[in-house]
């Protein structure tokens, strides 16, 4: 209960500071939108030359992309760990975080949230509704629950991987460029994994399970029954990777000695 009230208060403060600079907010949203447009145009242009990509149609690919945008937006809003090393380890902010009465990871999530990223989910929902009606996908009442469950699973996978990466900073305080690399790799989960070599497919499923944030859960709504097993497994993989990440984080905090700066 204490955690919830702290969360709500941080969120209130955040809204106040952000709404002070509405023009910036608009520009940020616009540039998010443009980044999404680049990906969409790539898909549209590619599919103007081929009707099917390994058996997947243009609309199905668009649906996968639309679905991916939702968990990604939630992840980007709450797990802003890009500069964790720089800000918390090198500059020594971690020492302050450890004196706070909530769990250190929770405290960092509170401090670094970027709620405006949630707007990135809107184009995703629009794409899904539009493409879904073109494909005349069936929709049952329990699919809404399923959607929430799969999105949460996807968010936990993303969070798990990036928290684990951030944890490396506790053990080695040298700056690495693994984060942008992971960001690049994550985008390959948006394409049907059967186009890849089986090594890459295995990695995207079990090692860095980004396929569970794109193609697997989306195939549940696309009624691709051969992928149902993977789709239903999404929340399990999410919970597993998130739990591992939190354990690694706790171990990292115990190891942490501070940089003395």
């Amino acid at each position, binding site marked *: 209960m204490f955690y919830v009230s702290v969360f709500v208060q941080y969120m209130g403060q955040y809204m106040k500071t952000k709404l002070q600079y509405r023009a910036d907010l608009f520009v940020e949203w616009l540039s998010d939108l443009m980044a999404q447009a680049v990906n969409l145009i790539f898909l549209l242009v590619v599919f103007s030359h081929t009707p099917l990509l390994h058996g997947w149609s243009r609309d199905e690919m668009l649906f996968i992309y639309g679905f991916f945008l939702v968990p990604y937006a939630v992840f980007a809003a709450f797990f802003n760990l890009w500069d964790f090393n720089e800000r918390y380890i090198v500059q020594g902010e971690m020492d302050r975080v450890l004196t706070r009465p909530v769990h250190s990871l929770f405290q960092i999530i509170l401090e670094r949230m970027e709620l405006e990223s949630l707007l990135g989910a809107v184009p995703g929902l629009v794409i899904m509704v539009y493409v879904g009606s073109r494909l005349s996908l069936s929709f049952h009442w329990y699919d809404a629950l399923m959607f929430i469950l799969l999105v949460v699973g996807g968010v936990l996978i993303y969070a798990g991987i990036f928290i684990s990466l951030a944890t490396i900073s506790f053990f080695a305080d040298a700056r690495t*460029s693994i984060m942008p690399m992971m960001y*690049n790799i994550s985008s390959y989960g948006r394409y049907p994994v059967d186009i890849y070599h089986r090594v890459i497919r295995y990695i995207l499923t079990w090692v860095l399970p980004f396929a569970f944030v794109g193609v697997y859960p989306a195939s549940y709504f696309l009624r691709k029954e051969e992928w149902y097993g993977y789709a239903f497994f999404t929340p399990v993989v999410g919970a597993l990777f998130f739990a591992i990440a939190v354990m690694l984080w706790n171990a990292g905090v115990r190891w942490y000695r501070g940089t003395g700066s």
Partner: protein
Amino acid sequence: MDKYMEMIRIRFLMMLAYRTNYYTGILIYAINIAAYYFLWSAVYGGRPSMQGMSLEQMTTYVAISWLARAFYFNNLDREIAMEIRDGKVAVELIRPYSYLGMKAVQGLGEGLFRLFFLSLPGLLVVSLFLPLQFPEHAKTWFAFALSLLFSFIIFSELNLLAGVVTFFTFRNEGLLRAKRFIIDLFSGLILPLSFYPDWAQRWMHYFPFQAISYIPSMIVTESFQGAAARDGLLMQAAWCIALLFPLGWLWRAAKRRLVVQGG
């Protein structure tokens, strides 16, 4: 001239100090190109060619486009915007060199560094496991080198233009981001322009963006040969010169308008 050469050298050495970052860079690059290769294989789906390009040519196109980008890419626009925000630009302007010229050679120093420490080893790595198709004629390589130099000049001119606009607007984060996406899309970096619909291609002809990535990559994959390659180079040269005019004009106006906030 000496001072400009010295600046190229200094930037090169500065980048050399942080070279470990580039080892992971090569890995990122290799993984990216491999994934693109599988994606394009699926798009081709066994067809021998699309828009006049074979799968090998397309793979080479993608691999070379990203490598060329490492050479011509720079953040001059952001650097200028930052110096204006911090007020450092005032000191820069009283120094005995051309501000924009100095920025351009700094970009060149960085570009040369990445060419030797990222592009060339990266190319070596991916050519081990992907079917790339390199040109045999020395003439093609020469044309490609020239084309790449033009790419750098045009990209830097556009960056300097965007940077100088900051003198008038103070904040132009939005413009800089928009420019990045437009260049990604319309320079032919993520897709050869010949894949776009005809009406879009006609429009793109009137903009300098295709001279950044599309022309050099088409030359090196020998999709442009003979007259087409020559026309491409001429077009790049024309843009190099044409962009100098708005740049010179804006720069003169900007120096008059300069207001240093704090610093």
